[in-house]
């Protein structure tokens, strides 16, 4: 079974573009299964289900969705195998830009929206740096020259990644994306897989539900900012 992970901020067009892409894949006689990872129920479960393919949703709720994803990769892989799928697509929201939701054995797609300003690529960090393909949407809304600067900066951050533009409304670009996804080799298990980028050491009191902010409630690994005299000018 092949495996692809697609991550990226909310509303960048992940689901719209994947819906077009999956139709090309299904037309080739491939059976995909999709898992969507989210923090809260976004009520979008019907979108993928409308394709008549195995679909599951994983809600991380109080946990960091990236941690939740890391601990559920193998379970999702086994589930998709049980569904007799040829391809597993995992869609997840990359949230704080601190992490990347990718593993080495899966094809990694980072979805980015051109309207986030050309200053943005530098802020994206690991999710851009560790992706195999950068999926660019909403290019029809920004000037040509800004797109060129944007692409250049992405290439600087990740020279190896493929840049693919796509339009979630018309489906343009979805066939090429489908080809990239299908180029990947089948794998039997994820037991040997590793995250491409380490997750943060989130082991403070707030990780377990603390809400009071006074210093006496800071437990575990905390990192407090220090301000020198000069900083208050």
């Amino acid at each position: 079974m092949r495996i692809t992970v697609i991550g990226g901020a909310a509303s960048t067009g992940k689901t719209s573009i994947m819906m077009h892409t999956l139709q090309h894949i299904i037309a080739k006689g491939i059976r995909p299964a999709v898992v969507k990872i989210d923090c809260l129920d976004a009520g979008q479960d019907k979108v993928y289900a409308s394709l008549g393919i195995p679909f599951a949703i994983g809600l991380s709720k109080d946990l960091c969705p990236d941690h939740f994803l890391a601990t559920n990769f193998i379970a999702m892989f086994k589930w998709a195998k049980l569904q007799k799928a040829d391809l597993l697509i995992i869609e997840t929201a990359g949230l704080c830009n601190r992490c990347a939701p990718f593993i080495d054995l899966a094809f990694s797609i980072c979805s980015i929206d051109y309207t986030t300003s050309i200053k943005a690529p530098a802020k994206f960090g690991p999710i851009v740096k560790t992706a195999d393909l950068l999926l660019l949407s909403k290019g029809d809304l920004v000037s040509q020259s800004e797109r060129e600067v944007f692409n250049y900066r992405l290439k600087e951050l990740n020279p190896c990644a493929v840049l693919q533009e796509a339009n979630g409304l018309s489906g343009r670009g979805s066939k090429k994306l489908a080809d990239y996804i299908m180029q990947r080799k089948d794998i039997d298990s994820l037991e040997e897989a590793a995250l491409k980028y380490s997750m943060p050491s989130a082991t403070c009191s707030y990780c377990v539900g603390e809400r009071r902010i006074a210093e006496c409630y800071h437990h575990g690994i905390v990192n407090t900012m220090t301000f020198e005299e000069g900083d208050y000018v």
Partner: protein
Amino acid sequence: MFNTITIYPGYNKANQRENYECLTLKKGSVYSIVGPTGSGKSQFFEDIELLTDTDGVTKRIIKSNEGIPKVVHLSQKMNFMVEMSVQEFITVHASCLKIDDSKSHCEQVLKLANNTSGEPILPSDYLTKLSGGQSRSLMIANIAMNPTSDIVLLDEIENAGIDRLKVLEILLDANKMVLIITHDPLLALLSDYRIVFKNGGITHFLKQTLEEKQLNKQLLQVDKKLNSIRHSLRNGLEIKGGQFNEQKAVME
């Protein structure tokens, strides 16, 4: 080396297959795209931009003879989003295009963007504060002065404050493939070929005739006249009867 793109038929809004075998467009030629609003002209540009392979709404297939051509596009919906001064942005853009002399590049872009009677864009102006016409003017100038492009797609450049004939001249000197969506008869007749759209599909592919070339010379005169009247109006002048009659004479 990239030289041509070939377009294979898709479907119009009535789901009828377009009636041609294939169309081949060449580098160094200008193609005008004409047709009523909503007839599929802009969709065609988006197909070319991503070299669609049946994966757009029109289901056209577009192939290049070799490699992936670099397509630059000015659509009607584009905006400047970044909070930067004009000069700062053109300099950053120049470095991405590997243009060494960014200072003179910046001057050339601004000179082109400002070469009509619009209020000038200053290097210190912020991109997001430019007027609609100024933004489009600057976007077109940026596209015209981009040495890396192979295919240039321009959607209605007549509504920007820029000398559209000058832009065409620069692009042709640089041997680009140029496609222009236009409602302006002058621009439509300046091109080597016309592609006509109706109801979402291509209906005609026409080569410019000698007669049209002749007519175009007359239209250029009319255009000059219209420009002078436009200039007078913008400067708060009254239009005298003589001016109008003179223009009429040219048209006859």
